[in-house]
């Protein structure tokens, strides 16, 4: 296996990269040996993706040195990276669903006859040989989109190999796969390792990383904080290094146990029974009580974001039922959900706000029917919006300004103000504090607590442990579409959450 003292196949030293003053990577060293599977773990924003984009030739303006086969290289583009044998399998696969398996394997490198026509027989022959070589059993003529996600992923890996890659970067390859599919993928990765290829395996699923990787590197806050042979460590060891101990700022120290205080006596406002949606979540049963904040935590792709959308009528469930105040709720559109008393704040401001409209129209869009049945009442609208602008300290305090001219944090407050005029029965917040500074996060916590104390049932879904820990009274953990753990009336900490996920 690998020897860390050797420079290896790929060696990066002192890599530093900043985005507009924010340091994403601060002097990272990274070695990849020939014939190893190297895991990369760390929280969102720790720097894994940035480093991978440098290796794949996406980011070209960085400081530091990159050596390939011992020689310094400076990749000019993703294309340059590909011709040097570096390939990437993204979480969102770059397959063409309407083409056949054989065509997908040959994407961009179709064999041609004279006259420039595609040589179909040669293509099928070489694709068959290539896939057989990798031990992938799949019908070459099948339409790519008809294959299971697991098979699509295997074909995608085959395609990257076919284009000549010897270093393959896999970004969250297991997040959407069922256990047998994961085993099949790991089988392929191990065979590739035996044949001398090197693989970089980025994942949030620590069990998966530990089971397939030879070594792993832990990222935290733009630094590679530890590299270790997987055989010598366990999940606990990784989590400790991902989170860091001691000298962290208060805001990040959700390491200590936080007592949860659920309200078992309170009435269920929103109840969900055996709700399933193919490809998103399965058999979810839960309830949100009056005056309670329920947090749902899970990695990206665990299904909690889709669940939230279903509860607001954006997506439809295939099976299961949703009940509001004990009565079955048919949430066939967002306007039905709104009228039923459900409010939803999506994770992105763009999904929620009208940049070229004035602030007051953004605030009142969801309550126009309450201000007047048919006619608009602009004076009331301004008056209502003005109240929120003052209450939420929105700057500048001018409701006639175009929303797009406000800063990001102030836009976020406008989005929240939207649901505050007429209080909903259920408020669903998706990633409510993402990208906010500490002060703005505190504002959100204050507002959410205040709403909870007025008896609203609040659901917070997030992929950030801090978000649910700072807001929730009770926490569900989702993993690959299922609820796997509930924390109620017990101390919980960030590492316990991560362990459960």
């Amino acid at each position, binding site marked *: 296996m690998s020897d860390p003292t050797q420079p290896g196949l790929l060696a990066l030293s002192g890599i530093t990269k900043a985005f507009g003053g924010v340091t994403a990577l601060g002097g990272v060293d990274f070695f990849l040996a020939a014939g190893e599977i190297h895991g990369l773990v760390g929280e969102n924003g720790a720097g894994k993706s940035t480093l991978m984009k440098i290796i794949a030739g996406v980011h070209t303006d960085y400081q530091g040195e990159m050596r390939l086969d011992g020689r310094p290289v400076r990749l000019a583009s993703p294309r340059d990276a590909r011709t040097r044998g570096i390939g990437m399998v993204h979480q969102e696969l770059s397959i063409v669903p309407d083409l056949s398996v054989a065509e997908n394997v040959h994407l961009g490198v179709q064999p041609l006859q004279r006259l420039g026509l595609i040589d179909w027989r040669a293509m099928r022959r070489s694709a068959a040989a290539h896939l057989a070589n990798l031990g992938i059993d799949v019908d070459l003529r099948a339409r790519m989109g008809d294959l299971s996600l697991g098979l699509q992923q295997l074909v995608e890996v085959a395609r990257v190999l076919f284009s000549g890659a010897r270093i393959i970067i896999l970004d969250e390859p297991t997040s959407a796969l069922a256990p047998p599919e994961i085993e099949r993928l790991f089988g392929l990765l191990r065979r590739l390792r035996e044949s001398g290829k090197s693989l970089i395996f980025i994942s949030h699923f620590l069990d998966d990383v530990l089971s397939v990787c030879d070594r792993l590197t832990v990222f935290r806050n733009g630094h590679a904080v530890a590299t270790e042979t997987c055989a010598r460590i366990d999940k606990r060891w990784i989590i400790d290094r991902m989170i860091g101990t001691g000298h962290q700022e208060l805001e990040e120290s959700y390491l200590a146990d936080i007592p949860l205080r659920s309200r078992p006596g309170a009435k269920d406002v929103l109840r969900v029974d055996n709700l399933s949606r193919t490809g998103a979540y399965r058999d979810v049963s839960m309830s949100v009580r009056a005056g309670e904040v329920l947090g749902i935590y899970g990695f990206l792709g665990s299904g909690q974001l889709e669940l939230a959308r279903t509860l*607001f009528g*954006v997506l439809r469930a295939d099976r299961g039922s949703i009940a509001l105040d004990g009565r079955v709720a048919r949430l066939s*559109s*967002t*306007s*039905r*959900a*709104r*009228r039923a008393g459900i409010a*939803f704040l*999506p994770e992105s401001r*763009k*999904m*929620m*706000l*009208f*940049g*070229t*409209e004035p602030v007051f*129209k953004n605030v009142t*869009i*969801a309550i*126009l*029917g309450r201000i*007047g*049945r*048919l*006619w*608009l009442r602009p004076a009331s609208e301004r008056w209502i919006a003005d109240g929120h602008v003052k209450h939420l300290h929105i700057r500048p305090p001018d409701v006639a300004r*175009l*929303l*797009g*001219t406000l800063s990001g944090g102030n836009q976020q407050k406008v989005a929240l103000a*939207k649901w505050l005029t007429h209080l909903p029965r259920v408020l669903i917040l998706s990633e409510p504090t993402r990208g906010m500074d500490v002060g703005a996060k505190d504002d959100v916590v204050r507002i959410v607590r205040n709403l909870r104390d007025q008896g609203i049932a609040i659901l917070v879904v997030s992929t950030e442990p801090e978000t649910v820990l700072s807001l929730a009274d009770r926490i569900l953990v989702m993993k690959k579409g299922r609820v796997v753990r509930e924390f109620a009336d017990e101390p919980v900490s960030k590492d316990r959450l991560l362990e459960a996920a």
Partner: protein
Amino acid sequence: MSDSRTRIGVTNWLRGQLRNVAPFVTLIVLVAFFWAASDSFATLGNLQNILTQISVTGIIAVGLTFVILCAEIDLSVASIANATGIVVAYFTAQDASVTIANIPLAGWAAILIALAACFALGAVNAFGLTLIGIPSFIMTLAMLQIGAGICALLVRGQIAYTVPPLILTLGSRSLGPVPWIVIVAALFLLVGHIVLTYTRFGRYIYMTGGNREAAEYSGVNVRAILSAVMIISAVCSGVAGMLGVAYFGSAQQNEFDTYLLDSISAVVVGGTSLFGGQGGIGNTIIGLFVLGVLNNGLDHVNIDSFLKILIRGLILLAALIINVYAQRMRTVTAA
């Protein structure tokens, strides 16, 4: 310091208002040009001509403004107008020389059937767009053909002349010096403006066009809004078609073909954003006058009549450039 800031403020304001200012300036320039170039242009009688000439287009353009504000398009307006005009004639007793196998009914019944017909055609557009998910561009292209087919089947190459008395009055008579058709067009424009500006439904239209996803996430029933605008567009077209038949004095195939381009031009030249969410009936009125003055004015100056077609095309192209440019300005200002 404060002076330069004021200047930046004014520049920004002008940039934001480009879509409103440019059509207005165009109109003034055109009027000034024709006034200077021709003695017969600037007369009261000619103003009446211009108003009458833009009335049918104006009624169609009201519905089309609703559609374009939602960032959709309706290519079937002229075809639905033609079909509705023919339907109302089909259910009216015709002169013995007209040998179509028509079904004479009372005037009010013919009008109701015609209104129901255009409503139904709009409903089919709405169904295809919102429930099936066919892009409006293609859906209404199919409807254009369907409308033409209905026309062909009903009149079979012949021409019908008689329409119900009410339609005849509204389409070809005058109230004092003002033709009824101008009054109807003005009413449609007025009601359209009130709906868009002062009602909840109007606000939802602007929001759906401005950011459809955000409208959806704000609990606006986007499908219902889109369905409604497609039906409104079809009904406006239908009314325009009935009055148009009376105005022309005949109902026949391909009678309204030029109205598709004219009505789209009026909306776009007026400055309503092709990307949705901005503009309105005020813009459409300016657009109607720009086109009306241009068409009418070119007849008053000595110009090759074949060149007219090219000039209209160039004006439309210029309007499109301004439209896209204004959109970018607005986005930059808001960013």
